[in-house]
């Protein structure tokens, strides 16, 4: 409308941020006009959450050395150093996980921490915390806020029994009830909603923005952006890529911008590819495969992975790619048919995958992958001892640990994988991320598997170790014919080692792509434009 003036309610310029020498934001700009819906897009790790943490003055920013750049709210420069300050400036946030109390009524939830109260004799003597609550005034406020977003519920009902979709609205109502709210951040609000609920939410966003409140909308779903946003900012690897008006762009361009044209080679493929992959030899076959892993739900996947190939599984966080290996290994409840080398896996039986010579390196190294207090030796030999009965000697009826055998194997592994440590007795928790990952790998290899699942192999490790790990995986595949399945959020790394890449979106397989397919294809597949649809390759 009045574009010539270009007044912004929020201007963040040249924002940069370092975490322990690691630059996660490299001069990012974010400009928001009053009353517009502005989409903030980017892959995982693009810097969206860091940017929002800076906007909210979260302690994590200020305990790690603050940020660079300027923030202006309504044209005047501000420093936001506490969440309280952000609140005073009229910046609110609708959380992805609900910050609601089920046992409280809608009113109480909306007014939590900001109750209205009237003074009484006790409060005059002992201070304002003894003031009695003014339920009538609170109910009135709640009703007003609910009316704003068009939610038809009674303000006195308890939140506990309400459907999930309503809870999001109550969160929004709470933010709206804060006085002088100007900017409202929605952090992936539709992730937990059904389709019709999501539509209602988008409608509510339009209503809110029409009242002059600007909305920053963080999402991965391109269709939602196209439907509701006025403008957008794209970040990639902590860098500012573009600010676009939605009417000037289209889905394909956005997808391309998100993925980027950068294509470094992570792996030196000097080895000749002598593999003969037989299309009829299926190593892993999934049919209507579902996994109930919180935050990474798999909602029915059909997939065949050929024997001897390196298969990549990509997709954004929370879309379900991590659920695939975790379900097979029995860490979360899984349903459907899983065949390993033609034999059906009993998903209800713990450890059945291990018995079928499937090994797994978990994405959660510290939580699932390691016994942090135990020695490197223990960590390496443990699974093979429990599953294959290795490193045990029999004395009478007892099966005792064969310390000599375990020690020599662990030392060998430390040498082969170049694990940097003071000795095999060092606790695994004391190692660096890269070396911990190698220990996890060593344990998986000690099982001598046919099929190796590696989840997020390079998360949180430095570039040198990254390369080494990926090259080692490629070597295992080339030399031993091991089927390797890499699950990763980093598309680049999948595209540099995998033969085929399956993209998972919303718990379903969006498509299978080749490493040299176009960026736009990858971008569209990951952003849910092909929901459960297009299959080729």
């Amino acid at each position, binding site marked *: 409308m009045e574009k010539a003036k270009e007044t912004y309610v929020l201007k963040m310029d040249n924002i940069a941020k370092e975490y322990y020498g690691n630059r996660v934001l490299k001069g990012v700009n974010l400009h928001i006009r009053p009353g517009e819906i502005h989409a903030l897009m980017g892959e995982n790790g693009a810097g969206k959450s860091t940017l929002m943490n800076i906007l909210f003055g979260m302690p994590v920013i200020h305990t790690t050395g603050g940020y660079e750049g300027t923030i202006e709210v309504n044209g005047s420069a501000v420093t936001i150093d506490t969440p309280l300050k952000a609140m005073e400036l009229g910046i609110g946030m609708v959380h992805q996980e609900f910050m609601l109390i089920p046992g409280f009524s809608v009113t109480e939830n909306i007014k939590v921490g900001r109750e209205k109260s009237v003074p009484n004799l006790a409060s005059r003597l002992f201070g304002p915390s*003894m003031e009695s609550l003014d339920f009538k005034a609170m109910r009135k406020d709640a009703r007003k806020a609910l009316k704003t977003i068009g939610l038809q519920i009674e303000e006195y009902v308890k939140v506990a029994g309400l459907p999930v979709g309503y809870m999001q609205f109550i969160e929004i109502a709470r933010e709206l009830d804060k006085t002088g709210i100007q900017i409202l951040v929605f952090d992936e609000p539709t992730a937990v909603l059904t389709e019709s609920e999501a539509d209602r939410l988008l409608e509510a966003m339009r209503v809110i923005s029409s009242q002059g409140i600007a909305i920053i909308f963080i999402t991965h779903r391109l269709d939602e952006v196209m439907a509701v946003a006025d403008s957008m900012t794209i970040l990639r690897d902590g860098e500012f890529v573009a600010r676009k008006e939605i009417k000037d762009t289209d889905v394909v361009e956005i997808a391309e911008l998100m993925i980027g044209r950068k294509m470094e080679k992570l792996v030196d493929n000097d080895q000749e590819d002598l593999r003969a992959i037989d299309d009829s030899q299926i190593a892993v076959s999934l049919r209507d495969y579902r996994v109930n892993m919180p935050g990474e739900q798999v*909602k029915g996947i059909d997939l065949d992975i050929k024997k001897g190939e390196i298969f990549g599984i990509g997709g954004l966080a929370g879309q379900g790619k991590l659920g695939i290996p975790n379900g097979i290994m029995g860490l979360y409840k899984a349903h459907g048919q899983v065949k390993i080398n033609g034999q059906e896996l009993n998903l209800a039986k713990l450890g059945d995958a291990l018995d079928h010579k499937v090994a797994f390196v978990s994405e959660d190294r510290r939580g699932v992958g390691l016994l942090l207090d135990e020695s490197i030796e223990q960590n390496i030999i443990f699974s093979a001892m429990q599953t294959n009965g290795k490193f045990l000697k029999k004395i009478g009826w007892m099966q005792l640990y064969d310390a000599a055998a375990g020690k020599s194997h662990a030392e060998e592994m430390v040498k082969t994988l170049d694990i940097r440590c003071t000795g095999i007795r060092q606790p695994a928790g004391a190692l660096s991320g890269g070396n911990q990952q190698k220990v996890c790998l060593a344990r998986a290899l000690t099982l001598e598997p046919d099929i190796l699942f590696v989840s997020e192999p390079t998360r949180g490790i430095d570039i040198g170790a990254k390369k080494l790990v990926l090259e080692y995986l490629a070597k295992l595949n080339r030399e031993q014919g091991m089927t390797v399945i890499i699950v990763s959020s980093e598309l680049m790394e999948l595209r540099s080692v995998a033969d085929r890449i399956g993209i998972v979106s919303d718990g379903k397989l969006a498509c299978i792509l080749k490493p040299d397919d176009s960026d736009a294809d990858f971008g569209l597949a990951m952003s849910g434009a092909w929901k459960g649809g297009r299959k080729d390759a």
Partner: protein
Amino acid sequence: MNKKSKFNVWDFLFQNKVVLMFLVLCIGATIASKQPLTFVIPELFTRIARNSFIVLSLIIPVIAGMGLNFGIVIGAMAAQVAIFFTTYWGLTGIGGFAATVALSTPIAVFFGFLVGKLFNYMKGNEMIGGLVLGYFAEGLYQLLFLFIFGGVIKLNNSDLMIATGVGVKNTIDLKDTVKYALDTVPMLTIVEVGFYLTLIGLGCSAAFKVVKKQAVDWKAVAVKAVAAAVVYGLTFIKPVERFLSADRLLLLSAVELGCLLTVLWQAFLFARWKMLSKRADEDSILEPLNTQKMIAYVALAAVVYGLTYIPALYKVLIAVKLPVMTYLCIGALCGFNNILMRTRLGQNMRTVGQSRTVANAAGINVDKTRVIAMIFSTVLASWGQLIFLQNVGTLSTYGAHTQVGQFAIAALLVGGASVQNATNKQALLGIVLFHTLFIVSPLAGKELFGDPAIGEYFRVFVSYGVIAMSLAMHAWKKASKPKLESDGEGSAEAA
């Protein structure tokens, strides 16, 4: 919505299973003990007077999410330190009792603060922590009473100290000091003091407003003052004065008064509603008058009054004499628990109790709120212990506090409370059931097994068992909750 209209008997039975089980147990044990109600009921009312206050002191920490406060033992210790000193100084009567309360309060505040601080270090482990802390404090308490009193602090009083001069005697007789100090406050005095307090309160309130230059509703103040004066004036009528000059109230009179007040209250509600509805404007939402409920109340009052004419009940009712002041204190604490929850602080406590994460995000100082809850509970527990001691009349120096937490918590749970939810009603119901069992179980044991000891062991087992069961059920629910949630998602998924 349909659920509400259809009253499900099975749901009701299931939700109140603990209470119902104990109700059956109590009735059974009472019958087995072959004791007349004229013995059991008066005994029960004595125990209600003694123990209610301390059980009610458990409610605030439950609401603040700190579970069952096993640390009230420490409050009891504060009370006993205070009562030791006032006995040593020779303070007596209601004045002595007031001095003891005044002395025990700062000690309990200090202890409560320390306990609260410590509990902030062991969030999620408060209950086991509180229990162990109780034993730890027991060690320090013994150190104080056995060695420091007399050993380090020289105390000369052969009535209190062991012959060697170091250490306090096993039992301290309170007969000549504060025994029945609170129980024997005459009703007349209570009304009189109440009248003056009301006047002071009204005066202060008005004065504050005047100083702060706010509008004062002088008419309302005057009406309240006059009402207070009228009530006070009634006490000058001879028969009323005679009735009020006693310190104990016959249970019969209490029931009659209760019926009368119920009817009067309903009449008052009706009158007020009539008046308000006359000048109602659109803005104020007048809740519709529930006439059915009112009639039910009046009818109930009439029925209860009628029941008093049944000879068997009449015999029981004239056998019980209630110490008025003590019961008033218990009632006041119930009121306090309720009113606190309607203040900003109380709402913060509830929020913290429901979810520390949400409370933090809403800008509530979680740690501070928890410490305050702990201080409240400890202070109230120390007062409760003083009420207990003045009624019992002897202080068993090394034993009076040891089982306080155990029995108070068991009583609360028997009333249907849980680790996360407790109300005044549950506390009072629990006391009635638990102490009935306490009175009759040795006698029932004697009748059934020929040995009262079995009954005694049984009631101890009950107190431990009910706590163990409640804790296990709470932990069970907590552990299976995430599973349920994910199952729910799974089924939504399938559908």
